């Protein structure tokens, strides 16, 4: 039962993380390279641009949901299982979501990485 709870929390956490990651990545792509922006306009402009981006707020909300499922999961299981398992599932979900929603070119190198990660996740579950 404890395992079921732990894996349930891991799944919820992964889903929320994928949604959050994609929204945050979209927000930061809209903001643009912060180093260039920092040199041109200064710190407050950068912070203002990030905070006024609606995708950023939606992303943070999803990340907060992921964070609270992490707290639940951590009180039920080991961190060396939960953190890599959730992060790896998130990674695979992100590869798909980034291709579909962010139009990133997920090349063979990145797909091979995703498959190795999937194998790693299977081993973590054992």
């Amino acid at each position: 039962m404890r395992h079921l709870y732990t894996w349930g929390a891991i799944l919820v956490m992964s889903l929320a993380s994928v949604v959050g990651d994609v929204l945050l990545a979209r927000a930061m792509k809209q903001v643009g390279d912060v180093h260039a922006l920092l040199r041109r306009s200064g710190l407050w402009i950068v912070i203002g641009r990030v905070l006024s981006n609606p995708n950023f707020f939606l992303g943070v909300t999803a990340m907060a949901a992921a964070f609270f499922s992490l707290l639940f999961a951590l009180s039920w299981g080991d961190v060396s299982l939960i953190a890599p398992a959730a992060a790896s599932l998130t990674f695979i979900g992100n590869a798909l979501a980034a291709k579909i929603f962010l139009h990133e070119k997920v090349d063979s190198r990145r797909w091979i990485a995703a498959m190795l990660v999937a194998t790693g996740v299977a081993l973590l579950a054992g």
Partner: protein
Amino acid sequence: MGHAGTLYWLYVTFRKYLVLAGVAVFAATGDPMLSYGMKQTGTVSLHHLSSLFAAVLNPWVAVGIVLLLAFFASYMNALSWADLTYVLPATSISYVLLALIARFALHEQVSWRRWLGIALISGGVGIVAGGPARTERAQARNEHLEYPPFAKNAKDGAPSASYEVEL
């Protein structure tokens, strides 16, 4: 590329890996702190949600949250100049750090299967770090030009040529 150009390239490359290292280290140190704190506060039950807020008052949980905020800042920084499918694998070294911390600081049992899984994850995703950081619009000047630069998204509002050399 002249002497100044080479120096600038070195600076940008160093900064790139510094930001990625920051993401990895803050991610790997934040979670164990939370784990340690949560083990002290005990099991959080769905019927006693208030215990979740009490947990935030635990100093280990509080430090863990500060580290995760530092992670968040460097993560946002990285996402502003790199793909999501680049940043996540490139910072995967955090899994190795995490396993070492769990084994030696938290004294959790890490089986050989889990070690192998962690090795596969970090090895597999590590190969991505050497590739291009950005694929969906014009490549930054310090990247391998595996994809031809194109100005399709120039009207997005985001500056696509991020590394204009000002020297």
